[in-house]
C-alpha cells in the first residue's frame, strides 16, 4: 500500500497556495469586466446607385429586375418591374408596425425568379424613424431561417426620399 499516505500528512500537504492566484483573479476579473463589450456594434453599408444601374437585358443574362420598396406610415409598397404589391401596416394607437416577414417572403419569391438581382431602392417617407429604416433594410438584405442560416436576398440597399408631387404622384429623389 505505497500509494496511501497517512491521514494527517495528506491533510497538511493537500492545500494548494491559492492566495496568489486569487490575487491575480481579483485584478483580472475587474479589468475584463471594464473592457467587456456586452453590446457589439456592427455596420450597415449604404449602396449608392450608379448611372449604369439602369436595367439592360443585353448586358446580363436573364431578365433584370428594378425593385423599389416604398415605406410610408400606411405601409410598405413593393414595386417590382412596375408590378405593385401593398403590404399594409398594422396600427394600434400611435404605434405603427410593419409586416416585415411578409415583405421578406415576397422578396424570397422575387429572388428565386431573378437570382442575379441584388439591388433594391427604398423610397422613404420623411416621418419614418431611423429604427424602422434599419428594420426594413434588414428585411430586404437577408432572411434568417429558423436554423440560424442566413439567405442573402438583395444586399445592396439604396435609400431615397419619397417625394409627393402636387398632382399626388409619387416619385423618388436621391
Amino acid at each position, binding site marked *: 500500500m505505497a500509494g496511501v499516505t497517512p491521514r494527517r500528512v495528506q491533510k497538511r500537504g493537500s492545500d494548494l497556495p491559492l492566495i496568489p492566484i486569487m490575487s491575480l483573479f481579483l485584478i*483580472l476579473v475587474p479589468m475584463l469586466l471594464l473592457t467587456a463589450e456586452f453590446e*457589439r456594434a456592427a455596420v450597415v453599408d449604404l449602396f449608392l446607385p450608379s448611372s449604369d444601374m439602369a436595367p439592360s437585358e443585353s448586358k446580363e443574362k436573364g431578365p433584370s429586375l428594378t425593385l423599389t420598396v416604398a415605406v410610408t406610415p400606411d405601409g410598405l409598397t413593393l414595386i417590382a418591374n412596375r408590378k405593385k404589391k401593398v403590404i399594409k401596416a398594422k396600427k394600434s394607437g400611435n404605434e405603427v408596425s410593419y409586416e416585415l416577414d411578409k415583405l421578406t417572403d415576397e422578396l424570397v419569391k422575387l429572388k428565386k425568379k431573378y437570382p442575379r438581382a441584388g439591388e433594391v431602392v427604398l423610397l422613404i417617407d420623411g416621418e419614418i424613424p431611423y429604427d424602422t*429604416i434599419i428594420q426594413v433594410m434588414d428585411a430586404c438584405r437577408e432572411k434568417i431561417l429558423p436554423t440560424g442560416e442566413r439567405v442573402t436576398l438583395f444586399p445592396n440597399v439604396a435609400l431615397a426620399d419619397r417625394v409627393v408631387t402636387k398632382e399626388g404622384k409619387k416619385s423618388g429623389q436621391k
Partner: protein
Amino acid sequence: MVRSSRVTRARKRNGEVITLNLTSMMDMFTIILVFLLTQISAQGQLLTVGENTPLPYSTSRKEVRPAVTVAVVGGTISVDGEVVERNFLRYDGMLIDTLKAALDRKAKKLKEISKTNPTVVFRGEVLILADKTIPFKHLKKILYTCGQTEFINQSLAVLQK
C-alpha cells in the same frame, strides 16, 4: 460565540492551521474569467457608443471598420467626437454648412496624412451614428451633406441583435 472560541482554542492547542476554503470562490472566478475572455475582442473597440446615443438594432454582422464618425443625437452633430453643430434642425435646406466645413477639413487632413504615411489610405469612409428615433427627413440631410463632401462610402452604425 462561546462554542466557536472554544473550538478555536482547541485547534490552537492541537497545532492545526485554519485556512479559508477558497475552492468554491476559485470555481466562480474561473467561470467568470473564461466568460469574459470569450467576450473580449482581440481588435479592441473601434467605436465608442455614448450612452445617450440609442443606436438601432440590426441583424447585420458586418464588422466596424476604421472611419470618420458622424454622431447625431437630438440636434447635435459631432465629427469624431468633436461637436460641430448644436442645432442642425434650424437648416431648412438639405445642406448643413457646419458639417460640410468640418468634413472638408477632415478630408484635407486625412489626405495630408496619407501623403506621408502610406498605411493611411483615404477612401472617403464615413460611419454615421444616429439616434434611432430621428425621422428620415433629418437623416437625409446628414447623408446628403456627407455625399456633398468627399465622404461617399457611407455606412450606418448599428448594434447587433
